């Protein structure tokens, strides 16, 4: 018994020593490390000579990582590119582990004296509204958060995904040789996914009335629907096997699985989602003709600049939607197709084309 | 020395709290049968496990073919020509006979098991020794006697010079046992040596060339059949003179307590285990059920106590009829049950004596009221049982797993006898416990009979059946061959019935 406790105490002491040894400079290291987390990506390098008033930008991700090759990452890139245009701006982020922590994670930035807080994803909508109401001095940018009533210090950055999907679908309708286009999607529980899908199908029919659209949502719950690339790949293959030659992959890792699968099929094309996936899914280069984009990077960056300039107002801001460059497939898209796309783009802009009738 | 096939020299082996073997020396010569005799716990199993390489001796050493050896394991012993037939067969039930025999020493052709060659060798072997067997039969489908034959062939296949047989006759009819003894005798003609472990005096005198008696881990006597008698051996075994027969008064049977009518029951595998069995047990009498194990005794006990559903037939306890099993309903009728397998059914090892003393009574007053246990009442009850039934334990709070087999059994008996009982079902009530405890339990069972309880005694020990019963029913292949009065019964007559032979 005694020998056991001696060992135990020794262990505790080792642990205590470790704590003490590192603890002596814990204050300095805490601030420096938090800076080191941000300095790598922030603009602190250029205009450091004049320590202008601090402009702290905080970003709270939706459940997921800041380098998720999807909307969290694009918002983060928007934040850093916005910060680069603002003197004295620092950026930092917190990755949300569990959706119950949204409010807490926002609070961490509030306690830290952030000037602008960006929250990513409609899931944070409510927590953001509450925080904005409670902290009228702090500006909030809610990505993908539609604002029902305008709160002066909260700007919702929203996108019309259906238009983006429509454009991509319109291109696909012209490019398909088999007249079958497929879509492999996250889940119908998340409305943007539904908008992308409906727009995609309508766009394809707009340019190609004979086209057959075959689309599948992931059959699992919200917890797996965006994280199941194996299902995405298998389903994409199933669509290819029955004649589809263009596949739209929309749904996080699940959709990426579909894109990578299409890349292995000669002659088949794929369409990415959210932003130009050329940069995020290099495995899909052999097939990636374009992506149905919503420009979160630019939207966030613009709103940040406006915030610094004091011109940010509450309410909704429509971000740009478009399709990404064709990269390796520039030659495949004929002038005629380009003209049609321009026509569609104009039609969507002036409202003469409705991407989601009914 | 050089004639010694297998031997132990000054072997000692300690387990936590027990000196299992203390300076034991034995030796077996070519072509002879050495009987190791002793009570349960005398150290026979330990010694045999040392000889077979399962344990390493703390002191002393093993001798094989005249040489000191340091056995590294059973495979080492096997490769030196030692074969062992364990009391609990070491066979893989769902595998075929031939696979079981060659397991661990398989003939190989092109990287795979050469089953054809294996079968050929098994057939050759079984014909050579007159031990006929179907090499492709699945072991679990074979009767016990045949399984034992597989075990013997397994040893012979490995070119054994020595065959160690651990309690080989416990599962056989007296006739089968005699046959086995004959087979062993024949095997010794070819130069084989046999170590024969038993606690049955009769068999020792019938077959052994040399006898070694163990008690409390020590050799207490070495003799030969010519120099001794059953009572002499018994005295050596126990260390005092023992009464081999139980003294009992004449039974005075009263009303029928248990009536079983055309009872049929299936075993775990869905095979018919009891086929239209009928009998009755009256107040104040003991009905013994004799038979070789595996002929339906277990299923009979389970059916009568409600552990197993009846497939057809009926049974009546007192005035109540039961057709589906319900342990609790039946036990509420004043039925006590000493289960066959005390570790599996009789106690819960991690529970204390307190808890085990009410294992099947916890739900009744005074042990619980409205679903709440009354710990103090239970404790007092347990202390009463311990006191009355002489259970040796430091306290009633210790886990039952810390008790010896005999003390566990006394606790079970005490628990079952602590109520007024109308019907006692006692299955193998003295298996694996020392003679003192056996005598104690026998006396208690007779006491219950004399108090007017009906007793159904199921035992594989023919001596126990013959000693205690007032009437004896013999089960064979799920049927009752006959019910005979104890006065008219003798070993030969019952033995024939146990083998399914009627005149």
């Amino acid at each position, binding site marked *: 018994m005694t020998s056991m406790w001696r060992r135990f105490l020794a262990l505790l002491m080792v642990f205590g020593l470790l704590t003490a040894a590192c603890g002596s400079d814990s204050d300095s290291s805490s601030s420096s490390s938090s800076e080191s987390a941000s300095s790598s990506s922030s603009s602190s390098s250029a205009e450091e000579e004049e320590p202008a008033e601090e402009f702290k930008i905080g970003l709270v991700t939706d459940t997921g*990582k800041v*380098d*998720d090759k999807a909307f969290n990452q694009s918002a983060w890139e928007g934040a850093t590119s916005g910060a680069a245009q603002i003197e004295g701006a620092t950026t930092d982020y917190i990755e949300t582990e569990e959706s119950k922590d949204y409010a807490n994670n926002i609070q961490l930035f509030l306690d830290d004296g952030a000037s602008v807080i960006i929250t990513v994803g409609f899931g944070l909508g409510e927590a953001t509204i509450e925080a904005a109401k409670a902290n009228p001095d702090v500006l909030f940018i809610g990505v993908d958060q539609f604002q029902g009533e305008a709160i002066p210090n909260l700007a919702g950055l929203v996108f019309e995904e259906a238009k983006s999907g429509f454009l991509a679908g319109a291109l696909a309708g012209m490019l398909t040789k088999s007249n079958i286009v*497929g879509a492999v999607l996250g889940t119908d529980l998340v409305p943007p996914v539904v908008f992308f899908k409906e727009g995609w199908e309508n766009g394809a029919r707009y340019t190609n009335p004979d086209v057959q659209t*075959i*689309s*599948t*949502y*992931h*059959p*699992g*719950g919200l917890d*797996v629907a965006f*994280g*199941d*690339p*194996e299902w995405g*790949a*298998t*389903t994409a*293959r*199933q*669509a*290819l*096997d*029955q004649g589809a030659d263009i596949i739209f992959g929309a749904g996080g890792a699940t959709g*990426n*699985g579909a894109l*990578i*699968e299409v*890349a*292995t099929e000669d002659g088949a094309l794929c369409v990415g989602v959210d932003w130009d996936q050329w940069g995020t*899914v*290099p*495995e899909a280069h052999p097939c990636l003709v374009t992506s149905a984009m919503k420009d979160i990077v630019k939207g966030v960056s613009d709103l940040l600049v406006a915030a610094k300039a004091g011109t940010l107002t509450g309410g909704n801001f429509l971000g740009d939607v478009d399709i990404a460059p064709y990269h390796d497939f520039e030659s495949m898209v004929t002038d005629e197709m380009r003209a049609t796309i321009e026509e569609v783009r104009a039609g969507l802009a002036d409202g003469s084309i409705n991407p989601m009738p009914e | 020395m050089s004639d010694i096939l297998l031997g132990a020299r000054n072997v000692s082996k300690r387990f936590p709290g027990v000196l299992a073997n203390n300076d034991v020396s034995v030796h077996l010569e070519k072509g002879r049968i050495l009987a190791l005799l002793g009570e349960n716990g005398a150290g026979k199993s330990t010694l045999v496990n040392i000889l*077979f390489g*399962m*344990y390493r001796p703390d002191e002393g050493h093993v001798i094989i073919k005249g040489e000191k050896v340091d056995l590294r394991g*059973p495979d*080492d012993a*096997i490769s030196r020509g030692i074969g*062992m037939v*364990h009391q609990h*067969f*070491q*066979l*893989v*039930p*769902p*595998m075929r006979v031939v696979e*079981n025999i060659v*397991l*661990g*020493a398989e003939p190989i052709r092109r*990287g*795979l*098991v050469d089953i054809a060659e294996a079968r050929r060798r098994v057939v050759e072997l079984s014909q050579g020794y007159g031990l006929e067997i179907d090499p492709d039969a699945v072991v679990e*489908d074979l009767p016990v006697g045949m399984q034992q034959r597989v075990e013997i062939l*397994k040893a012979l296949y490995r070119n054994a010079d020595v065959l160690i047989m651990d309690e080989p006759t416990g599962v056989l009819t007296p006739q089968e046992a005699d046959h086995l003894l004959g087979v062993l005798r024949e095997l010794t003609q070819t130069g084989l040596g046999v170590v024969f472990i038993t606690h049955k005096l009769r068999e020792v005198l019938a077959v052994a060339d040399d006898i070694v008696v163990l008690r409390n881990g020590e050799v207490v006597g070495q003799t030969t059949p010519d120099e001794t008698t059953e009572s002499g051996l018994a005295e050596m075994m126990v260390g005092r003179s023992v009464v081999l027969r139980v003294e009992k008064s004449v039974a005075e049977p009263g009303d029928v307590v248990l009536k079983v009518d055309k009872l049929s029951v299936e075993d775990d595998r*869905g095979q018919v285990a009891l086929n239209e069995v009928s009998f009755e047990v009256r107040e104040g009498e003991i009905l013994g059920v004799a038979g070789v194990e595996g002929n339906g005794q277990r299923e009979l006990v389970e059916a009568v106590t409600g552990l197993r559903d009846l497939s057809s037939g009926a049974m009546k306890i007192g005035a109540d009829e039961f057709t589906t099993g319900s342990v609790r309903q039946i036990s509420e009728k004043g039925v006590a049950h000493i289960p066959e397998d005390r570790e599996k059914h009789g106690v819960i090892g991690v529970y204390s004596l307190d808890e085990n003393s009410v294992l099947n009574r916890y739900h009744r007053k005074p042990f619980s009221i409205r679903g709440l246990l009354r710990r103090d009442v239970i404790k007092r009850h347990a202390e009463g049982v311990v006191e009355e039934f002489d259970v040796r334990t430091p306290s009633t709070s210790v886990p039952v797993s810390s008790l010896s087999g005999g003390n566990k059994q006394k606790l079970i008996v005490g628990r079952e006898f602590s109520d007024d009982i109308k019907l006692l079902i006692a299955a193998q009530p003295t298996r694996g416990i020392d003679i003192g405890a056996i005598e104690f339990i026998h006396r208690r069972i007779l006491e219950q009979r004399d108090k007017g309880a009906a007793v159904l005694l199921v035992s594989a020990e023919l001596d126990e059946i013959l000693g205690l019963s007032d009437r004896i029913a013999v089960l064979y292949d799920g049927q009752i061959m006959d019910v005979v009065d104890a006065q008219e019964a003798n070993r030969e007559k019952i033995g024939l019935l146990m083998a399914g032979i009627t005149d």
Partner: protein
Amino acid sequence: MGQVVKLQQKRLLYMGLIAVLVLIWFFYRANGPQTTAVLAGTVRAATLLALGAMCGMIGERSGVVNIGIEGQFLLSAFAAFTIASMTGSLFMGTIAGVGMGLLMGWVLAGMAVGLKVDQIIAGTVLNISALGLTSFFYDRSRSLGMGKYTNIDLGPLADLPLVGTVLFSRPPLTYLTMALLVVVHIALFRSVWGMRTRAIGEHPGAADTVGIDVIKLRYFNVTIAGGLAGLGGAYLALEAVGTFSRAMSGGRGFLALAVMIFGRRTPFGAYAAALFFGFTTALQNQFQLNSTFDIPPQFVGMLPFVVTIVVVALSGLIGSMRDPAALGQTYEKG
């Protein structure tokens, strides 16, 4: 007696097989591309389940329950992906995946056989650790520049209608899995190793008395079985998907267990069961692609899981299957 039952079962099996083939032919005549697509999807979804089931089977045949297959898949996929992307070689990645599987198998054996930790708990530890470790160490900047394993056509066989696409135009690890089914079957039922393995799962004491080292063999088997799960992980990352993502195994390790039990712990039985579950998945996709029913995908998506429950319950009722007698028990000598 048992022979008659076996014969009847065999006859039933053949009749079922013929019925399935007739049905396939019927559907193929009705709609070739869709039938091909569904069956190809079936075979594809079955590969991972078959590998997991073989892993579980070897463990259980030797008496060790492995519910850590899910974790083995995940961590092996991670290792395979990471190494493949570092070296630029899918082959090296595959080796790494198998290696990680072996390592995890060894850890499981260490806990369950060596330290005698409850086997279910040991498996759970693997699952939780794999999820934590892969999330913590995952570096998102990695990718497979060279792409994933692609289909290899088996000469003229690949040009056959239906079976050409379904069976003979497959990526390498799928072929390897099919070959392994045969190898494991022969090993399990014909080799010395297999006979001893089955013996230690049924009656380790008996195996011990004939000189088989139960502990050592269990260590070996659980480790080797881990290699199969590791191959499954490599398949997942390098052949099925072509990248790694968090929790990408998505419960398939658990499905593999159900498949193993349904397949009576035989490789071919498990493969048949895996095909069946692959079929339910492919079928529900097809229902959606064709807009056959207007049911929410959440309900169609329940199909494989409900079917599993029904099957496990039914096979229990029928009593056709029996666990290895020593399953789940630690073995102590003497």
